Each structure stands twice: as C-alpha cells, then as structure tokens.
C-alpha cells in the first residue's frame, strides 16, 4: 500500500509531476544524443584516420622514424608482409616505400611525403581507391602516375593530367627528381591525406631511389574484435629487430581522444543530472511542504520515520521510473534515425574539415551507455529525494498537525 500511496501521491499534483518528468525526459534525451553526437564526432574522426591513414599497426626499421632516411628499410619487408597477411585476425597488410621531398607544379611547390604504394594491398588496408574524388586509382596514365589530395592540388593549382615534379634525396643522398602526372585527386577529412601525401606506385619510386626493392613501412589493418597487442606480440616473437607500433603509439593524440570519450559521458552525465537534481529537489520539497499536516498525521497515528522517508524516496523514484524510459526511448530513436541519415553539418563543413572532421556525423551509442544513464537517473532521483525526505522526517507531528 505504501507503493500505492507513493504512486498516487505522484499524481496529486499532475502538472508539477509532468514538468519534472518532462525535465527527466529532456535530460535523458540530451544526455544520450549529446553523448552519441560526440561519440560520432570522435569515432568518425578516429576511424577515418585509422582506416584511411595510419592503420591499426605500423612496422618500421627502428632508425627510420628518426629522420625518415631512405636507407633504413625493413629487411625482407615484402616477405614479412606476405606472412602477416596469413595471420588470423589480420584483414590486410601492405608495404610502403616512403621518402620526404618536394612536389612542384609549374606555378607552386610544396613539401610532401612521397608514398610508394602497393596498389592492390593499399586499397585493402586504407581504402585509398574509395576516396578518389576526381580521376582514377592509377588507371589511364602509363608512366609515373601520382595521386594527391584535394587541398594539395588546390595549393599547387594543378588538375587531373597535370604534370608535377617530385624531388627528393636518393639512396646515395643525391637530389633526384621525377616527372609524374596527376591521375587522381583524393578528398579526405584527414589533413595528412588531403595536404601532405603524394601517392605513387612503389616500383616507380624505388627505381628513382635506386636502392632496390625497399620497404620502409608495413601497415596492417586488423579485425575490430582483435587487439593490436596480439598481432604486435606475434610479430615481435616471429621477426626480430623491427619496431611494431599500434595506432595508440603512432598517434598518441588519438589515444588521448579515445580515453577522453570514455570520461566525456560521465562529465556530460554529471552536468545534466546535477541540473536535474535541483529540479527534483524543488518539486519534492514542494510536495513535502504541501503535505505537512498529512505527514504529521501519518507520524501521529504510527507511521515510523523510516516509512515516511521511504515513501518520499519511492515517490521520487517513480518520477524517474516514468521519465527515464521515455527519455531513453526518445534518445534511442533519435540516435537510430541519425545513425542512418546522419546529422548534416555541411554548413560548417569548411571549418570542420580543416580540423579533420567529417561534415556529416553519424551519432551512435553502445548499449551499455543506456544502462549507465538509467542507473544515473535512478541515483539522481534518490539523491534528489534525500533532502525533501529528511525534511519530512524532521517534522514534529504536533506542530505539523496544526499547520494550516
């Protein structure tokens, strides 16, 4: 009957209860959508960089990353890559020959990282072929094709079929140059792909470097359920001497963002639920102050303080129990809808892309977030009830009974 009284008490002041329930619905919805939105932002950004640029794992000669000297290549890089591809949990692996240099058009020049790639395997590892915005993926130009990013093309003022010259130090340390023709222009929110890379065929580059069949980088993409450390450990135990790093080590700023996302849910939840607590405290305090005489009567006839306290607590939890599922449902539907159709931020695309973000966001939430939010709302309701319930049990029955 205590539950029944508490439930009925919730609806004694229908309008006021609906306002609090509405606040809970909006709070839960905002929490879910806000978290999903931020999640979409970060995960989209991170997966874009991991899947289109740095990959899950990179392997180098330990000396290579110090100053990108072409002579520090991975010994038997191609054979090692062949073997890695056969490992369980590996989706793809590719080799790259990398050299720093300059790209110049008849009008402008720019510093660039020249990446000699294995055409077929690169498309498996980084899906480079899927982000071709103009032109083709190394098709249609027989000699020295190059693919560059849209921003770089803009800077150099070059178009498809334009001729560019790549200049760099060869294996002997001499400056060498090669004429290349733009076969494709890629568009990506990754700043590196868009502005800093020039993709050429590996054989074209190695012949210009003149040190033979050199591999400076092995990039590995793995199944999502496989931990990078498993493949790295396997590599280290199979092959000696190379440096194998996960994306967390290659791009520590991404790892930091990943960790930040984990705590962001709690920060957002803390802010919204704290605001909600004030609403709940206010409502329940009014509910208690309105019923002083009734509460006095209950204590006078023999309802002990624990029961009075519990009754106020249940009333508040009921508000949460009604509001939270509606908020969860609305939040879930909103996330589902925008997860399919995306949130179009193209009005801000220029600004977003300059920071490496996509202009269409796909919010998403892991199912445990709904659980965490539900627990959060219940805790909020309980916390919000503590002060009003304490006020209720502090009433003196004699004084309360004579309250007008």
């Amino acid at each position, binding site marked *: *009957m*205590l539950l029944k009284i508490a439930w009925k008490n919730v609806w004694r002041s229908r309008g006021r209860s609906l306002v609090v329930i509405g606040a809970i619905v909006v709070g839960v919805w905002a929490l879910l959508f806000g978290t999903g939105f931020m999640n979409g932002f970060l995960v989209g950004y991170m997966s874009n960089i991991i899947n289109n640029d740095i990959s899950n794992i990179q392997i180098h000669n330990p000396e290579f990353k110090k100053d990108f000297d072409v002579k520090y290549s991975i010994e038997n890089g191609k054979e090692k890559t062949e073997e890695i591809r056969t490992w369980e949990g590996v989706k793809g692996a590719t080799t790259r020959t990398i050299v720093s240099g300059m790209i110049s058009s008849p009008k402008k020049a720019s510093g660039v990282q020249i990446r000699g790639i294995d055409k077929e395997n690169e498309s498996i590892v980084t899906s480079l072929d899927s982000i071709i915005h103009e032109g083709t993926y190394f098709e249609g130009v027989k000699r020295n094709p190059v693919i560059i990013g849209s921003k770089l093309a803009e800077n150099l003022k070059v178009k498809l079929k334009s001729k560019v010259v790549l200049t760099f130090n060869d294996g002997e340390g001499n400056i060498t140059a090669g004429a290349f023709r733009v076969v494709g222009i890629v568009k990506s929110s990754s700043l590196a792909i868009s502005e800093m890379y020039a993709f050429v065929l590996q054989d074209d580059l190695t012949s210009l470097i003149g040190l033979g069949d050199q591999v400076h980088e092995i990039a590995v993409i793995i199944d999502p359920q496989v931990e990078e450390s498993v493949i790295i450990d396997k590599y280290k135990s199979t092959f000696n001497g190379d440096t194998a790093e996960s994306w967390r080590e290659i791009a520590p700023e991404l790892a930091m963002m990943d960790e930040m996302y984990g705590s962001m849910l709690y920060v957002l939840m803390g802010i919204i639920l704290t605001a909600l607590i004030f609403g709940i405290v206010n409502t329940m305090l009014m509910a208690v102050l309105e019923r002083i005489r*009734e509460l006095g009567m209950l204590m006078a*006839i*023999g309802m*002990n*303080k624990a*029961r009075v306290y519990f009754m106020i607590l249940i009333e508040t939890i009921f508000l949460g129990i009604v509001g939270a599922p509606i908020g969860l449902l609305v939040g879930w539907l909103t996330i589902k809808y925008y997860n399919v159709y995306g949130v179009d931020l193209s009005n801000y695309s220029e600004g977003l892309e300059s920071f490496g973000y996509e202009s269409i966001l796909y919010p998403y939430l892991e199912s445990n977030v709904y659980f965490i939010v539900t627990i959060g709302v219940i805790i909020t309701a309980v916390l919000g009830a503590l002060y009003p319930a304490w006020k209720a049990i502090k009433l003196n029955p004699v004084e309360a*009974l004579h309250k007008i």
Partner: protein
Amino acid sequence: MSVIKAEKIKKIYQETAVPVHALNGVDITIEAGEFTAIVGPSGCGKTTLLNILGGLDHPTEGKVVIDNTNITDMKDSKLIDFRLQNIGFVFQAYNLIPVLTSKENVEFIMLLQKKDKAERDKRAMSLLEEMGIADKANQRPSELSGGQQQRVAVARALASKPKVILADEPTANLDSKSTENLLDMMAQLNKEESATFVFSTHDQRVIDKAKRIVTLEDGVIISDVSK
C-alpha cells in the same frame, strides 16, 4: 483498571519570548471504558493535555503511564510504535489520506501493524458498517461529506484496536446532524465494545453525551465530574 495515568503534568513552551505555561500540574486518570470530555475555554490547555496523554508531546514535568507503560521519557521512535499499537486518534480536520479510499484509509493503520490482508479487509469493512458508511468504502475523502469523513476517521482510529481513542475537537467542523450521528455511534461503540474515548471539546453536544467531564482552566483541572 486505568488506561491512562498522568501525574503532576506541567508543560511550558519555552520557544516564545515569554515562556507559556500551558499545563500547571495536571493529575488525571482515565479508566477503561470511559467516555470523557476535557472541556474549557480556548487556550486552557485541552489540546496540549490530549497530545501529552497520547504520546504526541512530552511534558516538561510529570509522568504519563499508559497501560502500565511509562511513556514520559520514551524516545520518539519508540513512541511512534507505541502510539500505533495503543492509541487511536481522531482529529478536528479529519486528516484522512486523500489519495486512498475510505476502506484503504481504515486498512492503512492495520497495514502499519503488519496485519494480513484478509484480516485488514474484514475489520475495515466491519468498522465501516458499524459507522454506517459501508457503501462509501470505495470513495475517496474528497467524495464524502464532513460527517462521513469523520466517521471514516473514527473507524480508522478503532482499526488498530487501541487502548484509548483521543479525539481533538472531533465535531468542530461538523453540522449538528452529523455531530449527533457521530456522537451516537461513538457512544454505541463505547457501550458495546467498551472502547475508551477521551475528547477535547467545547461543543455542548459532546459535553451532554460524555459520562465524565473534566474542566481545565489556565492549565489546571478545576472540576472533574462523573455523571
């Protein structure tokens, strides 16, 4: 056999700028089956005495024994349970739980006493029948007249099978017909079930029905007459 025995009860309210001496050494004994009215002018200490006799308030001095239990220094938490098991209250403003029906209001006190559902149902209905409002069992207080609400309140007070029922100005908000009906029913319960009633009142109709009249003035008993 005495149900309530109060000795040398003094109550001084210190909260005001000038301390108020509400009771100045009251001695009163209520025997089982009595139908007693405590009367006197406003401010004479009737309600204060009733509150102290019912364990709702502590005396500044003196001793209150109910059914051989000294409740004078009993802790509030224990007093609540003591009231639940031993005292029935009827208030001037009925003070029913507005969200419950008449029957649920009567049942509620038995629920607090942890009586089982079947017993609660049976006793609640039988009390409502005795009070002549069985047909209002499923109606909420807001759907009842003042007289009917007060009858539900009396049924609620009786539901816990208390040693004594303390009624503070129970007829103050009722018209004469409702007052007459209520008093007749309480007198009948007193006679047939030996229920002990103590009223605080200045309603002459209650005074006329009472078997014993205790008159208070300035916090002291100035007369105690049994009819």
